[in-house]
């Protein structure tokens, strides 16, 4: 790779020769900002860059300040990278989590033209004019300019660039999983808990976001567990867990959401770390886990200290520095200043010292003591007690610091300022337990005044917090908690609860009580002097926090939103506690009273592709097709969406326009014969002693007296009196009905009926079964319909006397059993042939074959709509919209006056239902017979009136009727029933006006003479 690119000369100058987790025998070449570098297998992009002495890796959001690598894990706020090229590019990834592989391609972000010379850095110089919330106070005049200002603001904002080609070539999957116990975090605590919980046979999932299990211990040099170095102990536990059938180990898997009823979401990065990604594997997989019990072992995050210049590249968290040294074999500096308010950073000082870095410790505490302090002293490390770094300087990397003695509470400088040169600052402000998942699941927090952190108290879901995320920073305590939680969780899920022995830990003792020092004084008046950052990513400084407090944004939630602290991609993992402590200080309040902001999913940003999974493309939503679908397709049909169904819309012959095709189809149905695939109609089989009683309550008309073999049209209302569905129902036997519903209404009508049966009329003996797919339907309509059926070999006497309109007969057609309904949506002689779905296609092709002699023409839904409109039949969902009553439709005839009740009856009697001003169904004839008024057009009496106009109502259906050779329409107009003969106007979108006459909504064959052919 990279034949053209020169590998950096200063190869891995910061690499040290010491035991680590990387494989120095496997060099890996990668590219950062056009420059090729070499790292080793096991490196993250961050560790590999540091090994090459690259500290400047990005620019900040607002001031475009140079930024480096702060942390070694997922809490990293600064080192955000655009990874990959073209369609594979992905912005805003944390360099600290990217595992390098051969050929990896990375770019820095938010800089123009280059990382080193970024013109946006002017913002930093002008920073004084851009305090928190500045844009609320400016860009107001002239008002018209805002959109231009905003345009510029938008382009300056944003972090990385999305992929260049938007069609993500990768595959993402998701899966459900169940377990007895989910363990989130596989550090010492999580591993131990998993082992304990698993040994009784419980089903365990252990997830850790890192590539290796072991957590914090992987970066620690001098820990002995059960007599072995910690990493050996880890390897042993992992080996034991791997051997267990009941344990699923998920490395590279972030538990990102913790929701109600122990539902957790995990993001597994399956192939992200591979140079070559097998095509059959997903890039990432989202796990949706239902756990009986949850053990949270997320560890803790170290806090930065807030001093001027604390955001320079080369200023790092002390624990991270230690991790780079011990885990990655990288020493990030040669002359280091350690600044700390606690013991832990002494470990970093010792490890740096061990690998040859010159170290100076500035300890904020006046009299630090204890074994670690002693060890540092013994090693000859210089320690300045009661001192602080008050300012750090440097252009693209820290170069120099000012150090001064401070008072006991770290609020004032008490003596001379001294200067030191350095290339690394390792800072430690104490630990904040990662209470994120616990809090997402609405667990409570309590403030620990000694450890200066929020730690979990009551849980809301069945869960345990253990180890550092429980505030138990001491390893031995963490392991003890792990054993206890593992045992309890196992027994809660009905498994063996014999506790393992808590491993024996040898580690230098330390004091876990840091000094409260939230903002380090720098000798300047408030707001002045170099900036001290709280939120690195969003460039929020300590003075921004204080300004917000001064301006009244005093709720921690207001502070967050006014300053944007904690709103970056890191969600303030390293900054939130500092921010709220500074706020508390500014308000003279206690930290626990100020409280935290709300913790929300996801723990770290989670790929949207993985959440969508495979529910995209063809699998986004099922397409439902009839059994005749293939025929329609091969005969050139175009299709229309009808809910999930695709229905044949019309069948254009070559060169035919839609208009021509539909006209031809309509004409055929009136003059010879048409055939429609009506299979999508909802069909419900209704059986039981009370079936007709039930129908009486369901429909507005009466059903008891319907004869066997007879069909009836019914209208269904909601209990608010509004039309909900319609269809024809047939009595098959005394207690057996066959109901049809609209295509779109099929599911909801069945659910509706079940609801009434199960919740209101529980005494009725009625059973409902959906048979929508059981039957395919071919509707043959037109004067030749009977002839076609006869030629098709029907064994029923089709004479109207024997088989009258609105009746049903069972018989055979072409030797196959069929149920035939003489009902008509076209007004012509018409047969709806229902046949077992397996024969649907055969029936259709057979009818087409025998029908060709009689001019049979397949027609689609559009022609069906024209035909029914000519007859003035409504379509629910087109003439109606949930606000239409039967009366509005002029269908009073279908409302039984004698039935004591039906659904919707009472509502129809409400005060406003009789208003003459309700919208009512009418027919329309456009003054220009060639013009089809667009559906949706709105009517007025006076098209010249000023806006807003007095609107009469809208056109619901509108077609060109080939039978009349003119346009026809239906409309819902205010007081429509009283408008017959009136002339009304339709202002069009293009400014023209159409004129129409209101007529009865029945255009064709008003006497119904054609129904028998």
């Amino acid at each position: 790779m990279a034949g053209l690119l020169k590998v950096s000369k200063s190869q891995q100058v910061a690499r040290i020769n010491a035991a680590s987790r990387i494989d120095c025998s496997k060099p890996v070449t990668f590219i950062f900002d056009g420059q090729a570098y070499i790292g080793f297998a096991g490196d993250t992009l961050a560790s590999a860059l540091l090994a090459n002495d690259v500290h400047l890796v990005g620019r900040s959001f607002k001031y475009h300040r140079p930024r480096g690598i702060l942390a070694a894990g997922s809490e990293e706020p600064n080192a955000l990278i655009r990874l990959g090229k073209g369609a594979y590019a992905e912005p805003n990834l944390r360099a600290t989590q990217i595992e390098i592989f051969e050929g990896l391609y990375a770019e820095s972000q938010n800089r123009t033209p280059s990382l080193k010379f970024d013109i946006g850095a002017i913002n930093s110089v002008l920073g004084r004019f851009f305090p928190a919330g500045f844009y609320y106070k400016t860009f107001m005049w002239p008002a018209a300019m805002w959109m231009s200002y905003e345009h510029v603001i938008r382009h300056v904002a944003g972090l990385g660039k999305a992929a260049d080609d938007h069609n993500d070539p990768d595959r993402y999957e998701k899966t459900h999983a169940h377990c007895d116990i989910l363990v989130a975090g596989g550090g010492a605590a999580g591993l131990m808990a998993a082992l304990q919980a698993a040994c009784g046979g419980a089903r365990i999932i252990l997830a850790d976001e890192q590539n290796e299990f072991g957590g914090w211990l992987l970066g620690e040099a001098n820990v002995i567990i059960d007599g072995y170095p910690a990493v050996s102990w880890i390897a042993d536990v992992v080996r034991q867990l791997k051997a267990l059938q009941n344990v699923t180990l998920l490395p590279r898997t972030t538990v990102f959401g913790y929701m109600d009823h122990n539902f957790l979401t995990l993001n597994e990065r399956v192939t992200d770390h591979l140079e070559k990604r097998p095509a059959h594997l997903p890039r990432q997989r989202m796990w949706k886990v239902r756990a009986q019990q949850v053990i949270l072992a997320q560890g803790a995050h170290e806090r930065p200290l807030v001093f001027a210049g604390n955001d320079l590249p080369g200023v790092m968290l002390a624990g991270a520095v230690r991790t780079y040294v011990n885990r990655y074999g990288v020493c990030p500096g040669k002359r280091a200043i350690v600044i700390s308010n606690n013991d832990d950073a002494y470990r970093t000082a010792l490890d740096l010292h061990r690998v040859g870095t010159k170290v100076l410790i500035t300890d904020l505490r006046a009299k630090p003591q204890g074994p670690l302090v002693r060890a540092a002293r013994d090693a000859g490390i210089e320690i300045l007690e009661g001192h602080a770094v008050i300012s750090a300087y440097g252009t693209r990397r820290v170069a120099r610091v000012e150090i001064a003695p401070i008072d006991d509470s770290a609020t004032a400088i008490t003596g001379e300022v001294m200067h030191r040169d350095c290339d690394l600052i390792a800072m430690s402000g104490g630990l904040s337990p990662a209470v994120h998942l616990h809090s997402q699941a609405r667990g409570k927090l309590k403030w620990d005044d000694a450890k200066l952190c929020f730690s979990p108290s009551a849980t809301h879901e069945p869960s345990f917090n253990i180890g550092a995320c429980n505030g138990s920073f001491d390893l031995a305590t963490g392991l003890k908690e792990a054993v206890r939680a593992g045992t309890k969780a196992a027994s809660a899920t009905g498994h063996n609860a014999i506790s393992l022995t808590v491993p024996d830990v040898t580690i230098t003792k330390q004091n876990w009580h840091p000094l409260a020092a939230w903002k380090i004084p720098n000798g300047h008046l408030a707001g002045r002097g170099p900036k001290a950052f709280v939120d690195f990513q969003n460039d929020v400084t300590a003075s921004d926090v204080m300004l917000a407090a001064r301006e009244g944004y005093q709720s921690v939630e207001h502070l967050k939103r006014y300053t944007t602290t904690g709103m970056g991609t890191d969600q303030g993992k390293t900054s939130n506690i500092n921010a709220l402590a500074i706020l508390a200080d500014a308000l003279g309040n206690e930290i626990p009273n100020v409280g935290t902001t709300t913790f929300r999913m996801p723990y770290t940003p989670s790929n949207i592709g993985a959440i969508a999974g495979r529910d995209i493309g063809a699998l986004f939503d099922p397409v439902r097709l009839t059994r005749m679908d293939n025929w329609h397709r091969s005969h050139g049909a175009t299709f229309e969406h009808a809910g999930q169904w695709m229905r044949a819309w019309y069948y254009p012959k070559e060169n035919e326009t839609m208009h021509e095709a539909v006209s031809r189809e309509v004409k055929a149905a009136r003059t010879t014969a048409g055939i429609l695939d009506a299979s999508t109609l909802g069909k419900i089989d209704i059986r039981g002693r009370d079936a007709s009683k039930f129908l009486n309550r369901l429909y507005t008309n009466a059903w008891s007296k319907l004869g066997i073999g007879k069909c009836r049209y019914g209208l269904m209302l909601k209990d608010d009196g509004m039309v909900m569905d319609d269809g024809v129902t047939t009595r098959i036997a005394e207690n057996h009905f066959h109901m049809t519903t609209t295509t779109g209404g099929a599911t909801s009508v069945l659910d509706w009926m079940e609801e009434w049966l199960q919740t209101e009329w529980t005494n009725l003996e009625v059973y409902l079964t959906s048979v929508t797919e059981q039957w395919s339907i071919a509707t043959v309509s037109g004067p030749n319909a009977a002839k076609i059926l006869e030629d098709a070999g029907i064994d029923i006497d089709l004479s109207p006397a024997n088989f009258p309109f609105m009746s049903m007969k069972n018989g055979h057609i072409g030797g196959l059993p069929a149920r035939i309904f003489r009902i008509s949506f076209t007004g012509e002689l018409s047969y709806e042939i229902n046949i077992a779905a397996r024969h649907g296609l055969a029936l259709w092709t057979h009818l087409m074959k025998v029908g060709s002699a009689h001019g049979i023409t397949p027609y689609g839904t559009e022609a069906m709509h024209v035909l029914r409109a000519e007859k003035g039949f409504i379509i629910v969902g087109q003439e109606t919209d949930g606000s239409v009553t039967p009366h509005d439709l002029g269908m009073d005839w279908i409302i039984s006056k004698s039935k004591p009740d039906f659904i919707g009856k009472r509502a129809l009697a409400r005060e406003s239902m009789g208003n003459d001003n309700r919208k009512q169904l009418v027919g329309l004839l456009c003054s220009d017979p060639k013009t089809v008024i667009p559906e949706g057009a709105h009517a007025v009496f006076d098209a010249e009136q000023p806006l807003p106009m007095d609107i009469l109502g809208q056109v619901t259906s509108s077609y060109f009727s080939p039978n009349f050779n003119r346009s026809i329409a239906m409309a819902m107009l205010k007081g429509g029933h009283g408008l017959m003969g009136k002339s009304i106007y339709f202002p069009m979108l293009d400014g023209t006006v159409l004129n129409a006459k209101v007529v009865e909504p029945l255009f064709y064959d008003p006497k119904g003479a054609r129904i028998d052919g």
Partner: protein
Amino acid sequence: MLIIPCPHCGPRDEIEFACGGEAHIARPLVENKISDAEFANYLFIRDNTKGLFLERWHHSAGCRKWFNLARDTFTHEIIEVYPMGSLPKKASARTSYSSSWRRGTLAEKAAKTGKHSQTEGRK
């Protein structure tokens, strides 16, 4: 993401269910003439309790049966599941039933006192 204990199928993920809103709303009979306002109590007015709430659920992708649930609308804790047409057994849920403003309203009475009552169950 709730786990809802279907009385027939056992605990299932909430995606299998549809929620039918407030439970125990009796449907007034048409012949018991009540005012439009009273009728609106049945049709539109809904208890919207913060805390323990009695509601109806439908196992739409399972057994297709309706049942009642006592659930806390703030904690999302499920306190009790009980069949259609019956009352909850847990004391807290019972109190929540009996203390509802709906008990004894004209709309509710109109459901019970029909001559040929159609309202066998209770929505």
